[in-house]
């Protein structure tokens, strides 16, 4: 209950923050139209079996949502620097509830990014049965879990000043090697590297409408391992950070 009430105001703050909206919403949307609008007729992008508008719809949605999740870290870093975190620690809001509110907020903004990019996709002719839309969305939301935790981790590791470049750098690099900008070839170093990154599996959610399992065991395993690993790290860093206060 407390977390929900708190989340309401967190959301309000997030949607009033222009820089955030530009990065996780406007930027992917504009890029999507720039890339996909002139090539809307490409039905099978680089023999992936996926149409170009669908491929980049999921690709840019994963880019925008990754940014949304990780930018939780910027907010946490900011609240640590200004002393707001300390102020909250003398209220009944538990640490758990605080993080829950942050993650819920990140997911809410991620959902908005998804809806906006789906609408853009539909406007360029992407169509599929409702259950595929849902399944695809489900995979993206699960695939974002490691990034939610990564946000909390970075928020306790970095300063506000270094968060901007860190978020931009991490998302851009991950997007590059995960096939957001162009389909990866089905073998080679880049492909092997991408396989072990959770961001790759975000983009792979675009395989849902083609049929078959979009993720397979490898996908689920990679996402699970990253989530557990990052949670452990985040917990360690959080403890170290609060012990110092």
């Amino acid at each position, binding site marked *: 209950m407390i977390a929900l009430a708190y989340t309401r105001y967190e959301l309000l703050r997030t949607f009033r923050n222009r820089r955030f909206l530009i990065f996780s919403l406007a930027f992917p949307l504009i890029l999507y139209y720039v890339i996909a609008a002139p090539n809307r007729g490409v039905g099978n992008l680089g023999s992936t079996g996926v149409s170009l508008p669908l491929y980049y719809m999921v690709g840019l949605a994963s880019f925008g949502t990754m940014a949304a999740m990780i930018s939780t870290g910027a907010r946490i870093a900011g*609240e640590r620097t200004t002393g707001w975190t300390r102020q909250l*620690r*003398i*209220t*009944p*809001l538990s640490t758990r509830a605080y993080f829950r509110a942050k993650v819920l907020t990140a997911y809410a903004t991620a959902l908005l990014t998804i809806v906006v990019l789906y609408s853009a996709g539909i406007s360029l002719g992407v169509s599929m049965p409702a259950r595929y839309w849902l399944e695809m969305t489900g995979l993206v939301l699960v695939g974002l879990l490691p990034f939610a935790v990564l946000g909390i981790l970075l928020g306790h590791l970095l300063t506000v000043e270094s968060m901007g470049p860190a978020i931009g750098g991490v998302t851009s690099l991950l997007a590059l090697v995960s096939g957001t900008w162009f389909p990866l070839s089905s073998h080679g170093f880049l492909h092997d590297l991408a396989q072990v990154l959770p961001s790759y599996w975000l983009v792979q959610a675009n395989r849902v409408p083609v049929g078959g399992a979009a993720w397979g065991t490898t996908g689920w395993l990679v996402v699970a391992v990253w989530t557990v690993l990052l949670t452990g790290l985040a917990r360690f860093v959080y403890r170290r950070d609060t012990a110092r206060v």
Partner: protein
Amino acid sequence: MLEDQPGGRAAASDGAPGIHVEGLSKSYKTSHGVVHAVAGIDLSIPPGQTLALLGPNGAGKSTTIDMLLGLSIPDAGRVSVLGRPPRSAVEAGVVGAMLQTGELIRDLTVGELIAMVAALYPRAMTVEKVLDLVGIAEVADRRTQKLSGGQTQRVRFAVALVGDPELLVLDEPTVAMDVESRHAFWATMRTFAARGRTVIFATHYLEEADDNADRAVLMAHGRIVADGPPTEIKARVGRRTIRATLPGPEEARLRALPGVVAVERHGDAVALSCTDSDAAIRAVLAEFPQARDIEIAGAGLEEAFLELTAEKAEPEPAR
């Protein structure tokens, strides 16, 4: 008379009302070695009392407050806040605090920010009520990043008050305020305290303790060096010295002047130690118009504190 450390006899017990501190200590490692920020303090605060924690910078006030609030863990000793350990008192929503430093979060209006904090407390005041109480109703719709320094401090005060806490802790609350804001701030604090709430505030202004507290506890070097009504503390540390070149009168005549408690003479130079330097200087000028080179120096609080600490340092029993 001022008491020595009042601890030793009272045992801080869980379940007892009020605040109880027993043998509390905390050290930090710095590049200069280990600093004993709080070096064993005992303190019992009955419910409803307004207590001023006085002391110069580095006396250990903030460290003590952090431990009262459960923000830091004591190396040794026990703290009981309204019958519970500090963390559980905080979780129960019976504690409100204004920390020494801290900014407000951005992108919310003042009203929204207060409502957000109110949502965390089980028995919160309404937003309107707390805005009225603190006197910031006129900025309720303003974004928090567009407030003046004084307004920001008052919003932070509202954040501390909105949960309607049993214990209100204020760590040097008026540092960033102008005179007028200070006035309004203390008036609000007294209104709140009058509802039977316990208030602890840290300050290095003796006047603030004198005007607003029932009791003043003086800290220096991590210890309590004096504990009593603020007027007594004030009499103790609020002395001033009048220096003048004044050939003639005997020490006894000078000591008999109103407000003078001690006299030193070196040749023509005299130094009068005064509890009331205003009365003393008037009397000096009236009776000894030949006095010249007159200087009145306040014993700075800092010096007075150090003096008190030095007095207390020797007989301190080993623990």
